[in-house]
């Protein structure tokens, strides 16, 4: 909106003030159409930079997206932000209309759900840490199932005896649960209260905890090239201690 006002001031000098304003409104409408088309056509969430490439350099992409988000808010399809990107999604109150039975059949086990939550809220986390929180040994299969969903990834290795693999979530996880960022995870405050999320691993309170920042932490080191294969091969024995 600020930019809009500014432009008006600049063109205020001209006699053709009115005409220009009308033209600008038309431009803006066209920019919204372009964003609309891009967002509807996209197979995956789009980031603002990619969208900006298709718009005039002067366009304020963020403001336009917010405008579009508002326009779609009452509709059956909404514009939402997931993992810092933008995407169109059916309105969540219409779930009853569209609920897909076949997907429900791919239900996760209780162990897998708990493990997913621990990875999400406590990442980067090793299998031993997951086991410590759950108080039970976690089968390799459980982590494999989560890797297969595409929500959990191998991050690196902890700089500790045995160099255990660290796990974290990724953008697919955020998109699946409609989260813009990890800080939007529900119940994060309660977990902080329960001492689950304490930042003691990083020792640096400026780092949001949990963090899915792809950059490795100080206590992590990169995976070797063949770790990724191992991590996904269900049969492979893959010890962490």
């Amino acid at each position: 909106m600020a930019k809009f006002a500014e432009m008006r001031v600049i063109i205020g000098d001209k006699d053709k003030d009115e005409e220009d304003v009308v033209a600008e409104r038309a431009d803006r409408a066209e920019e919204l159409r372009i964003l609309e088309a891009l967002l509807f056509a996209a197979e995956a969430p789009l980031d603002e930079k990619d969208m900006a490439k298709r718009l005039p350099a002067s366009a304020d992409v963020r403001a336009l997206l917010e405008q579009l988000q508002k326009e779609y808010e009452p509709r059956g399809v909404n514009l939402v932000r997931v993992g810092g990107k933008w995407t169109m999604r059916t309105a969540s109150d219409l779930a009853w209309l569209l609920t897909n039975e076949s997907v429900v059949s791919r239900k996760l086990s209780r162990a897998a759900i708990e493990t997913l939550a621990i990875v999400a809220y406590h990442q980067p986390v090793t299998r031993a840490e997951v086991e410590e929180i759950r108080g039970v040994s976690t089968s390799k299969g459980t982590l494999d199932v989560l890797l297969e969903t595409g929500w959990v990834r191998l991050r690196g290795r902890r700089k500790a005896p045995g160099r255990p693999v660290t796990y974290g979530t990724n953008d697919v996880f955020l998109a699946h649960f409609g989260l813009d960022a990890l800080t939007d995870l529900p119940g994060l405050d309660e977990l902080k209260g329960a001492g689950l999320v304490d930042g003691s691993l990083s020792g640096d309170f400026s780092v949001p905890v949990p963090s899915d920042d792809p950059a490795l932490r100080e206590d992590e080191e990169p995976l070797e090239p063949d770790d990724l294969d191992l991590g996904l091969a269900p049969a492979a024995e893959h010890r962490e201690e």
Partner: protein
Amino acid sequence: MNAEMTDVEFESVAERASDEPALVVDVEGFEGPLDLLLTLARQQKVDLTKISILALADQYLSFIEAARKMRLEIAADYLVMAAWLAYLKSRLLLPEQHAPEGGASAEDMANALAGRLRRLEAIRQAAEQLMGRPQLGRDVFARGLPEPIEEIKKPEWTATLYDLLSAYATRRQTKARSFVRLPTRNVWSLAEARETLERMVGQSFDWSPLDQYLIKYLVEPAMIPTVLASTFAAVLELVREGHMEANQQGSFAPLYLRRKQPTGGGDPLPSGPPAAAGNA
């Protein structure tokens, strides 16, 4: 051991597996000893911060005891926890001065256990909330028919001036060299020379220098030797056969030719009478 508590416990286990007969201890229904402890703790119906670890340890131990009496297989994790709880219980019941040198106090150990239970409960609540969120492909949906972006690769052609010139020069030269070979085949044959001489000189009864007849063919310098040689040989032949007369005033002087006079007469050479016919 408190029999009343054990009963309560058994009832709750029966509830978990309502289709099973009562008094069945179902260890497999739990996600490990902490899960079992948490389930037992919930029965105290108090805030986990105010939980009685001692009572909890009792419940856990009696649960395991009952399971063993029924000869159920119990995973090692549960037995390790049972041993640890039995130890904790004994420590909690003993006066604190008997604590081992440098070790954690029984109270610390109890608090740590309570903390772990709180943490597990918190993560379970979080998991529940997370799974309760609208999920993609279950509750909310992306575009069913996305329109993929078509990649168009636009070629940007490159060539340098050097490429251009060297390609041109190479091609033109290759072509030119194939022509250069042609003149070597282009020998002025004796037959050709004779035919030309007969046609050209044959009509003239006047002396004419040989060069004049050759001019037409001398345009190309490379042809001079072959034309000259063949023509001279042809002249000699024609003279011998009596068709033509030749005259040369001296060595390297121009060679004059004329058709043989039928009468033997004719004009003399412009610069004097011929000295010796057929002199080369």
